[in-house]
């Protein structure tokens, strides 16, 4: 695969506050890559560096092998879909989309045919003369995408483009964006704090936190083999407990020694153990590896979300079997369901559900959206 963009040891600070801390990243031609992380992790700054709206304090940005640190935004072959669309309010749909072609002095006939073609691609046929300020959020979004794509950029940058849309529309647009990317073969660099969005759309995901890249990998890699507690917690739900590896393929946690599939750790090394809630089977107490008391049950539609207290540590289990509050149950964990991670600075910060509540979770989600 051909590299199209390369970030090399990039650091950036605003008013003395480090936003990006020595980031290196290679982006390949034609891929759909997502920068994922909580607000303030530096993902948007990374995108703006590629777009030419920020300059790095240290490090280099390469485009097709050429250093572009000092190339201004209007000379880069990279276009952006902005978070709030940034459509030009004084121009109608046609003129918004034709904007870059007019600057390039493209012939009138060609402009008309290209705009028509791209409007069809984003399913806005017949909207040419509408006022952009009167369109719905989803329609404005499509105009913004069409405007960015019409001059055939090599790379399209998308800064949380679906953040302002409602859930249903978001799902539709996710599919549409993915289709557009496949159709055009343009490299998409997508920024989001929504892990579901990242997993379902991307070829590769870059998980970021505190101005550093935590992990780069395919969605399945990131989900199944998180490198540390931060990634494990940010991507999906996970129970993260302290464990010790007495030998290869054996791990001891919660007072029980389990078979596992990981190896390569020093004998007796302290590790973080990840168990996904959906990988735990609820069984009768005598059949389980672990025993505990149910402290809360929430019906989620597809499954029940059960919080189980095992020796003071609260586990989250997702199961289709019902267990009532106060029940004693056993938990059965297969070797494949256990993932071992090296200890990191994030150990012990995540993965315990003692203070878990849905409302809290939603509140903090809403906060992070606003901050962005």
């Amino acid at each position, binding site marked *: 695969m051909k590299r199209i963009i390369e970030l090399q040891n990039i650091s950036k600070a605003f008013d003395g506050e480090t936003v990006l801390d020595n980031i290196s990243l290679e982006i390949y031609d034609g891929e759909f890559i997502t920068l994922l992380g909580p607000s303030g992790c530096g993902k948007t700054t990374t995108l703006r560096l590629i777009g030419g*709206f920020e300059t790095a304090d240290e490090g280099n940005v390469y485009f097709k092998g050429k250093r572009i640190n000092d190339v201004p935004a209007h000379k880069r072959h*990279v276009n952006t879909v902005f978070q709030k669309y*940034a459509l030009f309010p*004084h121009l109608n749909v046609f003129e918004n989309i034709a904007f870059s072609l007019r*600057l390039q002095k493209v012939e009138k006939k060609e402009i008309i045919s290209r705009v028509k073609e791209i409007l069809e691609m984003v399913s806005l046929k017949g909207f040419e003369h509408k006022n952009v*300020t009167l369109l719905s959020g989803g329609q404005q979004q499509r105009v913004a995408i069409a405007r*960015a794509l019409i001059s055939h950029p090599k790379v399209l940058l998308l800064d949380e483009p679906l953040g302002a849309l409602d859930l249903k529309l978001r799902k539709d647009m996710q599919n549409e964006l993915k289709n557009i990317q496949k159709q055009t073969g343009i490299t998409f660099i997508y920024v989001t704090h929504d892990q579901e969005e990242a997993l379902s759309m991307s070829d590769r995901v870059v998980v970021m936190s505190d101005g550093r890249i935590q992990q780069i990998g395919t969605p399945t890699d990131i989900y199944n083999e998180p490198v540390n507690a931060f990634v494990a917690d940010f991507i999906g739900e996970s129970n993260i407990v302290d464990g010790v590896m007495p030998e290869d393929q054996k791990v001891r946690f919660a007072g029980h020694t389990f078979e596992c599939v990981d190896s390569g750790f020093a004998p007796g090394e302290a590790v973080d153990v990840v168990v996904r809630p959906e990988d735990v089977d609820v069984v009768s107490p005598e059949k389980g590896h672990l025993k505990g008391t149910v402290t809360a049950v929430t019906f989620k539609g597809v499954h029940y979300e059960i919080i189980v207290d095992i020796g003071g540590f609260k586990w989250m289990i997702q199961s289709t079997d019902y267990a009532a509050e106060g029940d004693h149950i056993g938990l059965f964990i297969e070797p494949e369901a256990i993932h071992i991670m090296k200890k990191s600075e994030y150990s012990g910060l995540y993965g315990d559900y003692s203070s878990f509540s849905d409302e809290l979770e939603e509140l903090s989600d809403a906060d992070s959206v606003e901050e962005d």
Partner: protein
Amino acid sequence: MKLFSRLYLILIFALLYIPIGVLILFSFNSTANTGMLTGLSLYWYKELFSSPDTFVALKNTLVLALSAACISTVIGTAAAVGISRMKSKWAKKSVQSVTNIPMMNPDIVTGVSMMLLFVFVGGMLGLTEKLSFITLLIAHVTFCLPYVILSIQPRLRQMDKSLPEAARDLGCTPLQSFFKVELPTIMGGVVSGFLMAFTLSLDDFVISYFTTGSSYQTLPLMIYSMTKKEVKPDIYALSTLIILSVLVLLIITNVISARNEKRSRKEKK
């Protein structure tokens, strides 16, 4: 209580508008009698337009107002954009205050101080006629500027900050981005700033009185000098015409700002 507030309102409006009404009425008086209406006629309008001085003054006033409005709009737009791009909050606030001072300053102080400055500089340059159209124009641009800046700033604040970035992203140089995207977006503010500057310059007397030369007379100055000799109803006619034109400008300004508001409300939705 309700009756009282209604009476109060009527009284205020009466005090505000009866003098203007009387002035307009007497401009149609058929004789020079100030105390009595002796019959309606357009005599004083005819009289007014038959004097060549009036036309010269009218032309002078319009030329001055137009040029002052154009120049202050260009400078004011640049200033407003510049202020909005300032990074340091402290610098922004101080520049803002400095631009607002001329608005608070009494006209008489502005007028006298400008006259002093012009005479002083003119003397240094060895000019024989120290006050002229140029000094008058400089003075007018100066007092119009803060109003232009103030009318553009809200539009700039409302503008989505990513608009200029989007323009550059699509291939605009910074200059193109300003003319193709930013300026059209704040156009409402620019136009109302222009109209405001035009109106202010049109009816200014105090500052003009101090800063113009003997050869350049504007309408307000002419009216003042006419009253010194003898109050004739042709002044009423002239005042009526000025009131009407200011009224028209005011209506245009209001229509534009109402339209802007409507548009920005739509954008917010």
